[in-house]
């Protein structure tokens, strides 16, 4: 409220006058020093904090050191204060706030909990917990912030935090209301003003009025710009985020958190030099949070990567696998660009940068600056996309080709909408596109998705965004991806691809999800939800309803397979398979049935069931290799080659796979594929250089490239001069040259 802000400014002015007069009739308080800083009087605030360090009470000295950025001293003083006053909740809260600011969320949360034990109605303790939870996008943040407000409705920071959380969830209405509430309580609530500014920026309106108000209170309050930048980042507007982070550090060059984010976001845009400068500056000035340190390490590791450029793409691969992966990655990059250009009727203005990380933690750091990220496989930052390399995950758990096409769709849609597209739509379209490349690609319906369908946990389309940003249950992100994908499948089935493009254009014009649905599909979001769910339940309702029964049957089947009771496996397996045909994860009926058929010598039947597994999207490289062997035995080399080629999109780091393909393509007189696969063997630096080099030579010879063939033959015979097949080909080459 105006009164309170006026009081604060008056107090700051009085304090300033006192400090200017060199002596104080009384000692300053921490709140007074903080108020000076909040209002941009940095030097005076420092003098004020300096005075606090001389106080008799350790808690006050702690506040002084904290204000002077002498964090270790502050930490020590708080420790002393807490030891001296075991019952004090407030000391713990302030200490917790210090630790939260200095990147130690775990100990901070413990201190807030200890404070709650001592004072269960302490709003500040709940606010502290909410801030820690908010850092990790934990859904608990909202509940904790609400609790803080419930305990102290006048707690400005709690309203500001609620506003921020709501805006992260794209709930502009609540965000604006909470910011307004904060401003009613305190008219110089700077973060509330910044939230309003962010709302304006996100809506492509001018934030100038709000930012002017911020500057009126504190011209060097960089945090306001950083807050706007944070929301731009969350909305995938990376260029705009960078621009606001620049404004933040311009307003306050020592705002290291914003400078670090500036560096990290520049990395997201594919830059390396400026990020290094910015992040090193943070590090050298003591700002060493995990994201800064990890990002610096990642930048350092780029010396281990190779970059390949052409007119349309920049591909960055780790040295140890670049030679192997480049042909496959380049082919899919080119193919996806050509496909999407035609489909989305547009061209990308610049080259796409594609990065593959063999270490998932490096990918995670590339994405968020932090390790972790669990199931996330790829991420797109405008025209830069980063993803796990196939070597980054165990064989059979990841289809990198599918992920590449998924991310590439984002590149186009983000460009087409100038990054103004809700997450649910662009993710849904990307998931949809995976299966358009091949029905075998994309994720299958997993048990957690079936359970969500059975328990009716799918979100209304107008609220689907929060299923991605702030999940309410652990698997909600996966369920939301699935739902979004199926929404797009449904739109395509019913209205066609053109309608999807129309929706893209609506989002580009800043229409909301309800507006876009109404405008393009001619119905309300509620009606759309109803019709979509009818369509979905027709397909999966029965499977979802019998999920528990299926699970019990599968357990029995697994037991029978373990006991090698193959007759019973064959008797019951097909029924279990039909109940939930999409289940291709570990211990699936397809592999049990195939094993049973093989044990009984029924190879043809085993091949049939494994073919079903392959067609429905099974990814176990072992099962697919088994199928290829059966196909070869059944004199179906074409089928065997096609089966093995699928593994190239799953786990190509397999020498044996490429050797087999190299032979199969040679036998089928497919020189282009033969050259690629034989070279893949060589790229894996096999111990058996002689045969690997010979195979490449043979492939080039068949492809009509005798010079290449000769070079590889020499390499083969250099390794093993007596290698008969290479000797024969050498003589053949010699004779054919003489014949010329």
């Amino acid at each position, binding site marked *: 409220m105006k009164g309170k802000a006026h009081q604060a400014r008056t107090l700051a002015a009085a304090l300033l006058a006192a400090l200017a007069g060199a002596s104080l009739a009384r000692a300053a308080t921490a709140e007074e020093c903080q108020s000076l800083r909040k209002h941009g009087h940095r030097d005076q605030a420092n003098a004020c904090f300096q005075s606090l360090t001389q106080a008799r009470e350790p808690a006050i000295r702690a506040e002084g050191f904290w204000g002077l950025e002498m964090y270790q001293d502050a930490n020590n003083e708080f420790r002393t204060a807490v030891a001296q006053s075991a019952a004090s909740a407030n000391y713990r809260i302030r200490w917790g706030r210090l630790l939260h600011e200095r990147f130690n969320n775990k100990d901070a949360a413990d201190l807030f909990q200890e404070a709650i034990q001592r004072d269960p109605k302490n709003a500040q303790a709940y606010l502290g917990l909410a801030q820690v939870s908010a850092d990790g996008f934990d859904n608990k943040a909202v509940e904790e912030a609400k609790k803080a407000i419930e305990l102290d409705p006048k707690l400005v920071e709690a309203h500001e935090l609620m506003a921020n959380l709501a805006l992260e969830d794209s709930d502009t209405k609540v965000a604006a209301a909470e910011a307004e509430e904060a401003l009613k309580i305190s008219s110089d609530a700077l973060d509330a003003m910044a939230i309003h500014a962010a709302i304006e920026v996100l809506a492509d309106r001018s934030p100038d009025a709000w930012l002017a108000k911020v500057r009126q209170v504190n011209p060097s309050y960089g945090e306001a710009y950083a807050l706007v930048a944070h929301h731009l980042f969350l909305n995938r507007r990376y260029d705009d985020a960078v621009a606001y982070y620049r404004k933040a550090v311009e307003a306050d060059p020592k705002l290291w958190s914003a400078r670090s984010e500036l560096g990290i976001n520049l990395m997201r845009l594919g830059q390396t030099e400026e990020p290094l400068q910015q992040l090193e500056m943070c590090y050298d000035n003591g700002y060493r949070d995990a994201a800064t340190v990890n990002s610096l390490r990642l930048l350092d590791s780029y010396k281990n990567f190779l970059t390949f450029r052409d007119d349309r793409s920049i591909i960055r691969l780790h040295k140890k696998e670049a030679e192997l992966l480049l042909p496959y990655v380049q082919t899919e990059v080119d193919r996806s660009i050509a496909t999407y250009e035609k489909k989305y009727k547009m061209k990308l203005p610049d080259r796409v940068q594609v990065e593959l990380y063999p270490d998932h933690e490096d990918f995670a750091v590339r994405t968020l600056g932090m390790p972790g990220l669990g199931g996330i496989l790829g991420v797109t930052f405008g025209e830069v996309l980063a993803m796990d390399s196939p070597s980054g995950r*165990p064989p059979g758990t990841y289809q990198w080709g599918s992920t590449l096409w998924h991310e590439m769709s984002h590149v186009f849609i983000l460009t087409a909408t100038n990054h103004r597209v809700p997450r649910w739509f662009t993710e849904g379209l990307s998931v949809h596109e995976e299966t358009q490349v091949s029905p075998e690609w994309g994720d299958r319906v997993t048990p957690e998705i079936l359970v969500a369908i059975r328990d009716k946990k799918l979100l209304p389309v107008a609220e689907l965004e929060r299923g991605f940003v702030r999940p309410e249950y652990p698997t909600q992100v996966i369920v939301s991806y699935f739902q979004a994908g199926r929404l797009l499948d449904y739109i395509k089935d019913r209205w066609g691809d053109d309608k999807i493009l129309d929706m893209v254009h609506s989002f580009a014009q800043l229409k909301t999800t309800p507006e876009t649905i109404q405008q393009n599909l001619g119905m309300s979001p509620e009606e759309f939800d109803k019709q979509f769910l009818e369509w979905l339940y027709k397909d999966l309702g029965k499977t979802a309803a019998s999920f528990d029964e299926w699970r019990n049957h599968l357990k029995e089947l697994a037991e029978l397979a373990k006991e090698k009771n193959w007759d019973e496996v064959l008797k019951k397996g097909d029924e279990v398979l039909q109940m939930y045909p999409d289940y291709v994860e570990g211990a699936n009926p397809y592999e049990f049935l195939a094993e049973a058929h093989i044990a009984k010598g029924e190879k043809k039947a085993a091949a049939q069931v494994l073919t079903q597994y392959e067609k429905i999207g099974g990814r176990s490289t072992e099962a697919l290799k088994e199928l290829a062997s059966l196909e070869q035995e059944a004199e179906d080399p074409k089928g065997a080659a096609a089966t093995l080629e699928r593994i190239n999109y799953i786990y190509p780091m*397999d020498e044996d796979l490429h050797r087999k393909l190299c032979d199969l393509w040679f036998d089928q007189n497919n020189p282009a594929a033969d050259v690629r696969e034989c070279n893949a063997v060589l790229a894996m630096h096999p*111990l058996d250089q002689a045969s690997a080099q010979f195979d490449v030579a043979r492939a080039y010879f068949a492809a009509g490239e005798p010079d290449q063939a000769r070079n590889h033959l*020499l390499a083969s015979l250099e390794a*093993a001069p*007596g*290698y008969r097949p290479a000797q024969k080909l050498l*003589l053949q080459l*010699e004779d054919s040259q003489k014949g010329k």
Partner: protein
Amino acid sequence: MAPAPEVGARVRARWLVGLGLLCIFLSGISARAATYYITIAGLGGEPDYEQRFQGLAGDLDKLLKDSGGDLHVYTVSGKDVTRTRVNDIFATVAREARSDDDLVVILIGHGSFDGAQYKFNLPGPDISGNELASLCERIAAKRQLIVNTTSASGGSVAALKKSGRAIITATKSGTEKNATVFARYWIEAMRDPAADVDKNEAITALEAFQYAERKTADFYESQKRLATEHPQFEDTGKSDPVRAPSTESNEGLLLSTFTLVRIGQAQRAAADPTKRDLLAKKEALEQKIDKLKYEKAAMREDEYKNQLTAALVELARVQQELDK
């Protein structure tokens, strides 16, 4: 057969060029000697391991017996594995084997190491590294190879090593105690032509080690698991185990001459007196190629390539004649 000192001199020269080339010449020596294989699959403890160990021993037994040549194969696994049975097998081999024969002992299963002593787990009393060494001592074969693929097998090296005996272990020390996968790939090496890197149609112990070591590392890498076994060998009888051959320390020399199985008809021509001249020419060409490779660094690229091509073409034509 050439007198031993001459062969040794050639070995030395070739050693400088590459270990893999050695067996072409030394295989002539061992061809007439017999190889005694003793494979022991120890106690599994759990049905899965029991099955796995017996399966590996069975595979190896079949592979060796099918490979032809003068091989004497003794395999024991499952319920048959007792100290008495093990002692009996070693006693039989001690009676039969001559000094110019080769001995290969393969241990599959679990091992343990208490900081001082390695033990191979058997039903009933285990067998220690020292006891195993003592059993091998009684066998006259001068060239011996012990492939210990068990957990903690690195702890057995000190007890087993001696001059003329090569030791391969699945783990780098006695403290790597998890079950191992090395045995699987060791056996695979003996049936995969890709293990025969010099294409002389024989798999040496060094080739098999390098193949299995690579496959073991790939296994842990692909499964995204921390590697809990690091295969190593020691074949000089006087050094610490290593993971790669070295021309300086001679580690790998014995292994490179230890032929495990033959996978082709490489020796057929050697027995034909009408082809002696061609064989001599072939050997001369092989030496010329070795020399060229040795001098590669000091030559111009095109000069090296031309000379190498000429020699290889000539060698291929000689081989063509030999194969007629």
